[in-house]
């Protein structure tokens, strides 16, 4: 049942020999940059204490960052970077597990391999070994980076271990997800959504935490989240090592579940059998096809944005109460909002809207990469052999991505406005909907960038598209915190969107961004028209 697993591990490592090292190098870079930024910005204990004091009283900051665990250098690095590194570790192993299990089954590779002297469970074992191994290397790399920056050993070890074990727990979750869905995209979406839920649940627990003179105590929801566990281990703040048993237990439970499910189902099958569908179709034109291919994705993102928007909107009142002339919180929030002044609660909402702008851009990138999937080994060739021009084909997908991004932002804005109104706030639904849409041009710029790389370098389109998104986030949202020069920050579209509702929307930057987006997309389409199809 397990024969051949070792050979499949080597095959998986061979396939991932570029991808996994890049993930790990990015994690090391984020860690090193985080330490450098803290050292630079808050060189002494007093400045750190002041900043954290302010942050601790702001539920919004706690929601995004977690609770502070102390005022030492390491503790602030924890506050600044641990949550995002835990998410990174979780996504790394999620994608790795699905890539080496369900994706192989969907493409038929597993069938070819399974016909060799390879056991039923070998593929699953290999995927888990690779994902868990990569998580351990990731944790080790982070620990060494922290030690190299001169931080205490115990905290550095706890920090790296938390990342490693969180990655392993999500490897288990992804292994179960890969058994449930017949499509790799669906399995990835489910597991990645659980990463988001885990982050959000932890955020709620931290935001509801009780403020005491010694700091903030985390509320119970954090204990339900695997990402919460990593933070509850409190690296650099009286480490609670025993908490790290929880992700190991979750991994064990998920692995047992995944094996039970794998033993019960057919190769390529899921738990939900396929039912017959319509014998005739009602899809019309490339737009009808593109919408059909993207609609599940759009629905998922819109619902997610509405739920998250409502959650954040309901915090408006708390923010109003909590942020009474608190210098530290004002500083952090202002940085998140890109330095805009104005009413504090407006700045808070603007900062949150910026996050939704990035999420809408992520959606647009994901939706547009469908073009590449259709071209490479998909039905794209057959579609382009019909009377559908290449530009029309790309434009149909672009329309779905742009419309979907607008819907995501609108859903977030309206939900935020409604929840704020329900909690007694006065932002107004229309204002918040407008604030959401103000982010759209930045998301569209990313969409244009994806079309450009798809037209120019099809074989690298997927890597370049995601790299572009990550660079945008790092430059635009955390540029101030990382101390990047303005010239570099300005490369990110997110540093140009007006921080509505903190400031009024001005047409200048919006029109400029839309112009850039259109130029990128038109250029990408022209390049695509003039190149060979690259299967």
């Amino acid at each position, binding site marked *: 049942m397990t024969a051949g697993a070792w050979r499949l591990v080597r095959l998986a490592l061979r396939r991932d020999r570029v991808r996994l090292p890049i993930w790990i190098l990015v994690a090391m870079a984020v860690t090193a940059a985080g330490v450098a930024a803290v050292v630079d910005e808050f060189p002494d204990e007093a400045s750190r204490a002041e900043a954290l004091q302010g942050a601790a009283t702001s539920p919004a900051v706690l929601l995004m960052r977690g609770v502070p665990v102390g005022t030492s250098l390491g503790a602030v690095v924890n506050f600044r970077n641990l949550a995002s590194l835990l998410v990174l570790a979780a996504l790394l192993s999620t994608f790795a597990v699905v890539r080496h299990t369900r994706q192989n089954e969907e493409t038929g590779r597993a069938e070819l391999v399974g016909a060799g002297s390879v056991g039923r469970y070998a593929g699953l074992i290999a995927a888990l070994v690779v994902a868990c191994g990569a998580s351990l290397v990731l944790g080790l790399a982070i620990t060494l980076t922290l030690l190299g920056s001169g931080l205490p050993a115990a905290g550095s070890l706890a920090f790296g271990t938390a990342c490693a074990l969180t990655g392993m727990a999500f490897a288990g979750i992804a292994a179960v997800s890969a058994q449930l869905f017949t499509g790799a995209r669906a399995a990835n979406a489910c597991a990645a959504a659980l990463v988001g839920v885990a982050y959000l649940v932890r955020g709620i627990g931290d935001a509801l935490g009780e403020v005491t003179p010694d700091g903030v105590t985390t509320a119970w929801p954090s204990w339900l989240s695997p990402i919460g566990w990593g933070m509850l281990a409190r690296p650099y703040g009286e480490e609670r090592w025993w908490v790290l048993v929880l992700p190991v237990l979750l991994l064990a439970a998920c692995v047992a579940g995944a094996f039970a499910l794998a033993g019960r189902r057919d190769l390529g099958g899921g738990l939900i059998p396929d039912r017959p569908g319509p*014998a005739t*179709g009602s899809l019309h034109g490339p737009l009808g096809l593109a919408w*059909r291919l993207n609609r599940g994705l759009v629905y998922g993102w819109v619902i997610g944005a509405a739920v998250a928007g409502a959650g954040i909107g309901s915090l408006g009142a708390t923010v109003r109460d909590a942020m009474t002339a608190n210098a530290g919180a004002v500083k952090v929030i202002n940085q998140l909002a890109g330095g805009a002044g104005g009413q504090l609660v407006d700045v808070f909402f603007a900062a949150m809207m910026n996050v939704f702008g990035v999420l809408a851009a992520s959606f647009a990138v994901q939706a547009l990469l469908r073009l590449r999937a259709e071209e490479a080994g998909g039905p794209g060739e057959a*579609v382009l*052999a*019909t*009377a559908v021009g290449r530009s029309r084909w790309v434009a149909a997908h672009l329309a779905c991505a742009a419309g979907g991004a607008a819907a995501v932002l609108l859903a977030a804005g309206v939900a935020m406005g409604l929840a704020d109104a329900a909690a007694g706030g006065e932002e107004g639904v229309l204002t918040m909907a407008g604030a959401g849409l103000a982010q759209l041009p930045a998301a569209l710029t990313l969409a244009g960038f994806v079309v450009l790389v798809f037209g120019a370098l099809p074989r690298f389109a997927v890597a370049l598209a995601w790299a572009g998104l990550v660079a945008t986030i790092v430059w635009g949202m955390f540029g101030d915190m990382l101390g990047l020069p303005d010239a570099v920050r300005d490369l990110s579209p997110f540093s140009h969107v007006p921080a509505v509702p903190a400031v009024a929307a001005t047409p200048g930057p919006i029109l400029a961004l839309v112009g850039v987006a259109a130029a990128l997309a038109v250029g990408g389409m022209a390049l695509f028209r003039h190149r*060979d199809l690259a299967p």
Partner: protein
Amino acid sequence: MNDAISVTGLIKTFGSTKALNGLTLSVRTGEVHGFLGPNGAGKTTTIRVLLGLLRADSGTVSLLGGDPWRDAVRLHRRLAYVPGDVNLWPNLTGGEAIDLFGDLRGGLDLARRAELVDRFQLDPTKRCRTYSKGNRQKVALVAAFASDVELFVLDEPTSGLDPLMEAAFQQTVREVRGQGATVLLSSHIFAEVEALCDRVSIIREGATVESGTLAELRHLTRTSVAVEANGPITGLAGLPGVHDLVADGSRTRFDVDAAELPSVLRHLGKFEVRAMTSHPPTLEELFMRHYGQKAAS
């Protein structure tokens, strides 16, 4: 009448690999043209150039009187394509995929669609992810043949079909030919090409090595003869044009060049022949000869 497809001196390179090296192809309007070659000879690359999916490095390519790269969309309205490796959308049903392709091509004959679904015994309510290779192929075939077009470009369209479906396919090709359509049929199945094709082009390493009707191709080659007589047949080995002679008592088998057939028959007349069979070379034998190996002798 103009040629439906006319290709001369076609060159296409991928990096350092020369996929097509001066390929020539001419398909007359209204004919079924067989397109043969071993794996990697450049058949699919040629077809992709003909569909405007790849751009020719040099050479002239004309399809239905237009340039497939420049006029792709206009020309695609007049042709239907069945890829060798049919990829469909896993969550659409076969019926939805057929109608979608029809819609994208500019319309579908619904009565014809129903007839073909029935003929190919396709269940159009199943999701594409559950189809076998053969069934995915049927989806592409129904979508193509239910379109009212002038040209069918078929890239190994029957590689996953069973013999019954192969017969249905041949019947369908004859029908569209009867209606005046042109068919370019890339295939590995010699019986299918022999049964359907008016003319054949054989390519090798990106260049055309032979092109013409089956009769023309055979003319250049040998006939296989098996003779049974009352005694051994002597003197054959000395005759010009006789090859691969195997004498086994009263039975003799040999191949003979078409040009020398009359003199060989005169020689055989001197013996008491009890039985004799002869058959022209099969396409398979022609094909194998072009690749340096003997067909099973």
